[in-house]
């Protein structure tokens, strides 16, 4: 990170090197800054068949030329480092990363982009296949996948699925819809087997529209490059901003000299902690729950847009807006920051040691919403009595790491002021919450803020609420008197936004010899970074029937990057620990894990409250059949071959609560229905889902429905796409608004001439006396190459009850994507820190080893549909739940293969080889003969 280095140099200029040695911080590389560089030069190139002559700056990349200067924004920038493939274009017919080519090198070359594929409205066969197979979810990687696939089909018109994977393997998809991309390419290549894989109309679909596989209403925009993401927004006179970030995990800023940067021609505004005292409310919340006015009053541990001291490496120190991105970056190099480094702590358990540095004066246990330094605790029964009643008691420790959301679209914001009115274009799952947050943080009336998000490239939990990037862009735009676009680099996005909280989990389980649970105890530690954005909870105990339960989880401050919500916030890591523990208990009791699960799994919520519908047992039995569990499972470690197969399962229950939302439907005399909903569609298909629900509820074809979304000036409040709530809550509001409209039509007749009918609904339903949950079970077979440490998923069956399935096509994408993400969490992803400097080493797609096409197995999805009569046509939650059991299922399968329990995520090759080597030497010590 350039910002880190230059500020470290500045640091060295102002302080003694002894300090550096004392904190073991790396020295700065000395580097001379010489002015100069090329003037613009003219190049001639062909773009999508049209010869062009353009003047290019020496520093422009091809991606920059296409996007900023030729207005071909279908080519996306996901990493700007040749790690993700979102910018893939064809250069003289071959796929290349446009971010990794200089525009100046393009003289005489021919470039093809996504915009050149369709002929008018006549889509390229691959684009049609992408639409039909629901290949794009968020759509941010789609142009790149398409260009790689186009090149493949030109050379090889009938590729195999493996050839398709190989051709697109340089194109990451964090929605992880790899199966559908491969299906689409195979189908476009004439592979008939792809048809067999197409989702079918679901069993419970006795309805007109709902339940039938339907391509997204905006799929064409997502496959032609026409979808406008925040980074594609370009306003007249717009400036470009960059952020200087702290190179130190904990330091006091003694001074910032901005004079040289301000003197650089083209610099228009600079913000630092001295000039900008805006509180970022949602960035640090007492108790880590929903931020609001009351919480704002209570929160002591305030987080500002710029903080002093800085508390993690990567925290914003200053921001610059300038006439172009290169000038803004040059200006960062001229900012002179003097730091006094402070002691730091990275690990959540070490942070609670008496001699650990206090990151906040109140200590390192994050305060709850009453400002008490107390853990999250739940107790039922008497665990000590439970342990006394047990035949056996088992104890174990599990750990999980920080994994980043890594959505394909890096965080960006465009802020524009018109007088005292602010418009923010930003990728947010919740335009309404973002708007409230911006007004509160900036101290301006709510009606003076408009938030717009037309398309966004993934969310997975770190694009809810507002973000500091939104505030920084707004502050710079106000100071500069011009619109400002702030785009984070991929590394900044990894360290500057948030990811899943790392955990340390201690379990103690009491059990009878017949497998009956008598006591469950969890003591957990969640590393929140230095600010509390979300809960830090560790879920899992609620999955089991047991009279005596105690969970105590400490949300702990550390000097790592901030943790927050990421797809099933407290579940995947908690389920990994809890269900690994229980799998281990089953193994020690010599029980088949399925029998143990069936005996002990939840039947009522916390053994007390009925579920609205209960399908967990059916999910498990359907999964066992489809997976062929009795054939694939064997006693742990029984496979003695070099390539060891193993089978594992995990199950899940996930909240599907009802709640408040709004919808407005407008009918004009031409018979057009405009459905106004405050959703943005993070990639799950919310817009299409709302359209399908409206069509069903109104009894009209989908083609009559226009969904209006993603703009607080045009849409009523919605909770936003977090907590897997959109379908249930906003979908139900659509049902109610449709009911209102039908009543109005019955009373007043259909509108004529210039008349319109406007119906609205703001329902706030509840499932009285019962708990509403989605259920599911995952079955996975792995093949472990024990000597080389490789784990390959050879079969995966995911069974889900998400109530009635509104759209089987997009629902399958959701399940497959979550599963693949969960496999990545189990086997690869980690933000590794250098312990001596407190600096993260593996930020970015390459470093975090995000799954590629070749890492993604084929996933078989089974929906067990239920209808509890609640929500829109009985739909329950889905988006997050597909990831939730995956890491536990994979880990249990690895245990079955090896007979050795992997207690720390991710299960990387070094850990497998190391565990087996340890096992071998232990056996050797016992005098066993080695094979």
């Amino acid at each position, binding site marked *: 990170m350039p910002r880190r280095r230059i500020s470290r140099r500045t640091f060295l200029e102002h302080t003694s090197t002894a300090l550096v040695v004392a904190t073991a911080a790396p020295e700065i590389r000395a580097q001379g*800054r010489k002015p100069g*560089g090329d003037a613009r030069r003219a190049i001639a190139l062909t773009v999508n068949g049209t010869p062009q002559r353009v003047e290019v700056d020496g520093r422009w990349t091809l991606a920059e030329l296409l996007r900023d200067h030729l207005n071909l924004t279908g080519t996306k920038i996901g990493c700007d480092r040749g790690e993700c493939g979102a910018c893939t274009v064809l250069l003289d017919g071959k796929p290349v990363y446009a971010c990794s080519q200089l525009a100046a090198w393009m003289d005489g070359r021919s470039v093809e982009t996504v915009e050149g594929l369709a002929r008018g409205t006549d889509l390229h066969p691959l684009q049609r296949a992408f639409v039909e197979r629901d290949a794009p979810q968020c759509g941010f990687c789609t142009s790149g996948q398409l260009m790689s696939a186009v090149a493949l089909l030109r050379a090889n018109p009938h590729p195999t699925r493996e050839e398709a994977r190989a051709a697109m393997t340089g194109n990451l998809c964090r929605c992880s819809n790899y199966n559908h991309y491969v299906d689409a390419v195979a189908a476009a290549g004439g592979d008939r087997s792809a048809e067999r894989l197409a989702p079918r109309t679901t069993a419970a679909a006795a309805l007109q529209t709902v339940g039938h596989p339907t391509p997204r209403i905006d799929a064409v925009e997502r496959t032609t490059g026409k979808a406008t993401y925040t980074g594609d927004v370009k306003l007249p006179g717009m400036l470009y901003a960059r952020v200087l970030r702290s190179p130190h995990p904990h330091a006091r800023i003694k001074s910032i000299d901005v004079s040289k940067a301000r003197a650089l021609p083209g610099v228009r505004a600079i913000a630092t902690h001295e000039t900008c005292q805006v509180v970022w409310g949602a960035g640090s919340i007492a108790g880590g729950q929903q931020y609001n006015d009351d919480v704002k009053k209570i929160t002591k541990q305030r987080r500002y847009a710029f903080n002093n001291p800085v508390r993690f490496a990567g925290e914003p120190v200053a921001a610059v807006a300038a006439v172009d991105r290169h000038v803004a970056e040059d200006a960062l190099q001229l900012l002179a920051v003097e730091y006094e480094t402070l002691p730091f702590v990275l690990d959540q358990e070490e942070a609670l040691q008496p001699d650990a540095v206090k990151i906040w004066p109140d200590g390192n246990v994050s305060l709850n919403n009453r400002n008490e330094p107390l853990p999250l605790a739940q107790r039922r029964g008497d665990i000590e009595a439970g342990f006394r009643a047990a035949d056996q008691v088992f104890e174990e420790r599990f750990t999980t790491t920080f994994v980043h959301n890594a959505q394909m679209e890096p965080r960006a914001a465009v802020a524009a002021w018109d007088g005292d009115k602010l418009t923010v274009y930003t990728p947010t799952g919740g335009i309404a919450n973002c708007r409230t947050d911006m007004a509160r943080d900036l101290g301006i009336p709510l009606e003076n803020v408009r938030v717009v998000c037309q398309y966004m490239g993934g969310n997975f939990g770190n694009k809810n609420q507002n973000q500091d990037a939104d505030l920084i862009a707004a502050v710079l735009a106000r100071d500069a008197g011009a619109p400002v676009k702030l785009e984070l680099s991929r590394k900044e996005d990894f360290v500057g936004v948030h990811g899943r909280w790392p955990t340390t989990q201690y379990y103690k389980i009491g059990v009878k010899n017949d497998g009956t649970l008598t006591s469950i105890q969890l003591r957990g530690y969640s590393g929140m970074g230095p600010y509390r954005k979300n809960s830090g909870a560790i879920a899992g105990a609620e999955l089991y029937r047991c009279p005596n339960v105690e969970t105590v989880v400490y949300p702990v401050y550390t000097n790592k990057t901030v943790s927050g919500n990421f797809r099933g916030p407290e579940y995947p890591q908690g389920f990994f620990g809890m269900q690994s523990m229980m799998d281990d208990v089953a193994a020690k009791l010599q029980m088949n894990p399925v029998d143990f699960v069936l005996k002990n799994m939840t039947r009522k919520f916390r053994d007390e409250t009925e579920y609205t519908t209960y399908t967990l047992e059916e999910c498990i039995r359907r999964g066992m059949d489809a997976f062929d569990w009795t054939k694939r499972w064997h006693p742990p470690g029984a496979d003695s071959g070099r390539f060891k197969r193993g089978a594992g399962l995990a199950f899940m229950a996930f909240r599907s609560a009802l709640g408040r939302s709004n919808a407005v439907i407008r009918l004009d005399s031409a018979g057009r229905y405009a459905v106004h909903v405050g959703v943005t569609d993070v990639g799950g298909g919310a817009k299409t889902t709302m359209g399908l629900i409206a069509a069903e509820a109104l009894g009209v074809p989908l083609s009559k429905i226009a969904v209006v979304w993603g703009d607080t000036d045009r849409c009523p409040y919605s909770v936003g796409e977090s907590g897997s709530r959109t379908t249930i809550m906003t979908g139900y509001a659509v049902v109610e608004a449709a009911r209102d409209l039908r009543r109005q039509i019955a009373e007043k007749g259909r509108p004529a001439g210039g008349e319109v009918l406007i119906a609205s609904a703001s329902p706030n339903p509840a499932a009285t006396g019962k708990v509403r949950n989605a259920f599911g079970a995952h079955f996975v077979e792995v093949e472990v190459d024990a000597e*080389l440490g490789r784990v390959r998923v050879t079969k995966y069956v995911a069974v889900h009850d998400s109530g009635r399935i509104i759209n089987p096509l997009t629902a399958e994408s959701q399940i497959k994507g979550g599963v693949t993400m969960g496999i990545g969490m189990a086997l690869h992803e980690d933000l590794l820190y250098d312990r001596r400097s407190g600096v993260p080493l593996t930020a970015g797609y390459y470093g975090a080893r995000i799954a590629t096409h070749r890492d993604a197995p084929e996933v078989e999805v089974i929906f067990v549909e239920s209808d509890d009569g609640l929500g829109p046509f009985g739909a329950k939650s889905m988006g997050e739940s597909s990831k939730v059991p995956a890491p536990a299922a994979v880990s249990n399968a690895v245990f079955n293969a090896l007979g050795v329990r992997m207690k720390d995520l991710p299960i990387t090759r070094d850990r497998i080889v190391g565990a087996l080597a340890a096992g071998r030497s232990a056996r050797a010590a016992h005098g066993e003969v080695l094979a």
Partner: protein
Amino acid sequence: MKAFTNASPTDLRQAARLAGQARSREQSVAFAAGGSDLLGMMKDRLVTPDTVVSLRAVKGADTIVSDAHGTTIGGLATIDAIGRHAGIRRDYAVLAEAAETIATPQIRNVATLAGNVCQRPWCWYYRNGFNCLKAGGSVCYSVAGENQFHAIFGGGPSYIVHPSDAAPALVALDATFRIVGPAGERTVPAADFFTLPSRNPSRENVLADDELLAAVTLPRPAAGARSTYQKVMDREAWTHAIVSAAIVIDADAADPTVCRDARVVLGGVAPIPWRLPDVERLLRGQRLTPELAAAAGEAAIAGARPLAKNGYKVPMARALVARTVEGLAPRRV
């Protein structure tokens, strides 16, 4: 990235001269072939050249030509072209297979053989801007830090591993490297091209700042030669080797189960492609059996000196060498 001047010479000698001239004005220079890695490093300001000498306009340095003495591959031949070349796939499978494991199709389409062989280390300390030995500093941060992916052979004072997949293959094939500088050309054997950090901790090879790798020449393969490249990665694509093995076996013409001669080189385990002469001696003149393969694996790890967190590479290297030798034995009919 820092502002810079673009230069576009049309031949390699001119490129070397341009570099020499810029340097004599105390300017820093970088050569750009495919440019993928260079641009990333420039964006991160890990390198801040005043002049970028683009080799895009250079003519004739990307050819693959075979004659009676062997095959010569231009330094600017793309990795993709090498991986697809019928003659290379037939005669030098180890190189074609290595090429196919490199990065992604998009990178292979522009990346060149010279660029791959001469790429800077991918050690996370170097790539994250630490002022380490490779950046001209005086410390290797991996020694007392995170060294999961670092060297188990040949380390000290730097413990990087050489990142190139092509390099072990070229060493195993006994290639000769042709180097062009402002004053002329020189050739060095592949094995002498790479330098250990104990000789020069800041560089990975013998190139002077104004020299370029122009071409490599592979000797004609022996009659019974078989070769392969096996790479262990920690995801299925787009990573560098944790451990890799480039092995060439010259089988006896009369009895292909007998190994007449062998060259065994590991990647991912040392600051240079790590040749294993003891393993080669062990294989020479022997019948290729599973027992011999296992012995080769054992011999491969003799002298390994792992750091605190990369000990797993030792059994991994043992298994990979044993398996790769076993895989090169002719199948029993």
